[in-house]
């Protein structure tokens, strides 16, 4: 009886087949992206699109890298790092106050941030555009950083406050008795304890900013400040007949996330799902 319960049902053949079918659906487009990016241009037009390249060629990658890819990569990295850095600092400070200061103002601020979670970003793009133009920031990286920070705050505060609430108040009380200031408590208690949450929020926001498309599309114009997702789109226009190069750019654009996936799968998954975890 016990053995039976442990081994469960007989192997689920239809389930495995369906799962394998979905696996193929998932994998084939990715396989296509990779093999096509490794084909010389002539072979792309001649060969079967799903065939393995006759000879591996990295020419397409060369053409992409020659076309300012490094600049776009750097722009994306800069926007992501600055936005996420600022968001983490200001959201953590705000969450600390919301959790520890039970005044009416802190409560009101918390409500306000929660409201922000339900705002669809793209619906505010027209006034954001208006403001960015009026501020003289149009077509600059700052035009991307400032709204990215603002729209990342609500979800960050939500996750961080939920996490900080779980810190037992006896710990704060113990530190208070030891005469610690609020700043010391923040540095010695809040900061180290909320590391996993900070990590998850950081990864979540980094993915959002790294992949963001609408802000750069509307708020920038020149190639000097172009970010990666937008560059993929413009490559597609410029290299219309050079699909291997376009797909090589697609592969290169996901290298950082792939690296994160390989190095810290657990953290990446935690970060991805951070938006909905508790």
């Amino acid at each position, binding site marked *: 009886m016990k053995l039976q*319960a442990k081994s*469960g*049902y007989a192997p689920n053949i239809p*389930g495995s087949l369906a*799962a394998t079918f*979905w696996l193929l659906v998932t994998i084939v*487009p990715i396989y*296509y992206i990779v093999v096509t990016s490794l084909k010389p241009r002539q072979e*792309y*037009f001649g060969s*079967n*699109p*799903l065939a393995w390249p006759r000879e591996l060629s990295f020419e397409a990658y060369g053409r992409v890298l020659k076309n300012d890819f490094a600049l776009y990569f750097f722009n994306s990295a800069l926007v992501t790092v600055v936005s996420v850095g600022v968001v983490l600092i200001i959201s953590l400070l*705000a969450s600390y*106050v919301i959790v520890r*200061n*039970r*005044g009416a*103002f*802190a409560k009101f601020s918390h409500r*306000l941030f929660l409201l922000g979670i*339900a705002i*669809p*970003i*793209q*619906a*505010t*793009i*027209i*006034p*954001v555009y*208006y*403001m960015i133009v009026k501020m003289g920031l149009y077509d600059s990286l700052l035009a991307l950083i*400032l*709204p990215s*920070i*603002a*729209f990342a*705050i609500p979800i960050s*505060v939500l996750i961080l406050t939920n996490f900080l609430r779980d810190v037992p108040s006896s710990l*704060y009380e113990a530190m208070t008795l030891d005469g610690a200031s*609020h700043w010391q408590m923040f540095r010695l208690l809040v900061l180290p304890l909320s590391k996993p949450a900070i990590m998850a929020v950081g990864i979540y926001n980094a993915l959002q900013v*790294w*992949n963001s*498309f*609408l802000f750069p599309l509307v708020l920038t114009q020149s190639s000097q400040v172009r970010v*990666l997702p*937008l560059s*993929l*789109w413009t490559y*597609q226009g410029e290299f219309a007949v050079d699909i291997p190069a376009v*797909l090589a750019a697609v592969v290169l*654009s*996901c290298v950082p*996330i792939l690296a994160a*996936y390989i190095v810290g799968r657990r953290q990446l998954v935690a970060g*991805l*799902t951070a*938006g*909905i975890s508790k």
Partner: protein
Amino acid sequence: MLMKSHTAPARTRQRRATSIGPSNWLLAPALAFFAVFALIPLLGVAVLSFMHWDGLGTPSFAGLANWQQTFSNPVTLNAMWLTFAMTVLCYLTQAPISILIGVFMAGEQKYRSVYSVLYFLPLLFSAAAVGIAFKALLDPNFGLSKAFNVALLSQDWLGSTNLVFYVLIFVISWCFVPFHSLLYQAAVKQIPTSMNEAAMLDGAGRVRTFFSVTLPQIKYTVITSSTLMVVGSLTYFDLVFVMTNGGPGNATRILPLDMYLTGFRSYQMGPASAIAVILVVVGLVVSLLLNKFSGTDKMESQQEGA
């Protein structure tokens, strides 16, 4: 009781510390950013929906003209219908696949963890990247049509008014199923094994166990994931913009795209703002309804499903 051993000044210091807490000033940076770049634009979009503005000059008051135009414009009305249809069809496609794949991934078998690693891969790509890759793959001359000599697969996937809408639903599902199945995997893993064992000993088959044990046990995840899918469907902008730009004709011109094209291509910011207001209101109503329904008052992120 402990208080008694303290000296009076220490006691007041302590009480002040716990009742006042850290200074409200620490909220200022977050509030400032949020107010300037999120709240003001939110009010701004409502104001602009009553203004004439071409994106360059100074906005001027328009009364209800934009709203009248929006609700009488067949393109926008069609966009509303398309958005609704896309939301429903995407949900009906994504939800069952995500649940089944999530349950599958939660299994203990070794090969399933290998599958799980591969199922994750679409999450590495941005929506723009996915759109561009599929555009190439679905090219009628050099894509899928050429890969297999099968008439069924030789279609002008993105050029046919009849097909393109369903192709987009497939690509959107391809993009977002991995995320939702991750959620379901985590939820299913938390179901105590004893419940499955009990069901099995009672003679319940696999299907019966799924409907009587698994599904009720993951009901909160179903609600969360559904919220994200439904509200997220208001934000399928990047993918559709890159793949079809609303075409052919207006066959895939969904509401967010209609807003963008009206505002930033036709320079009619007033009507575009009216569309934006509709998006905000629908988004708010849907997430509030779903949260009411789920019995939690936590609002979930809607950027997540995007």
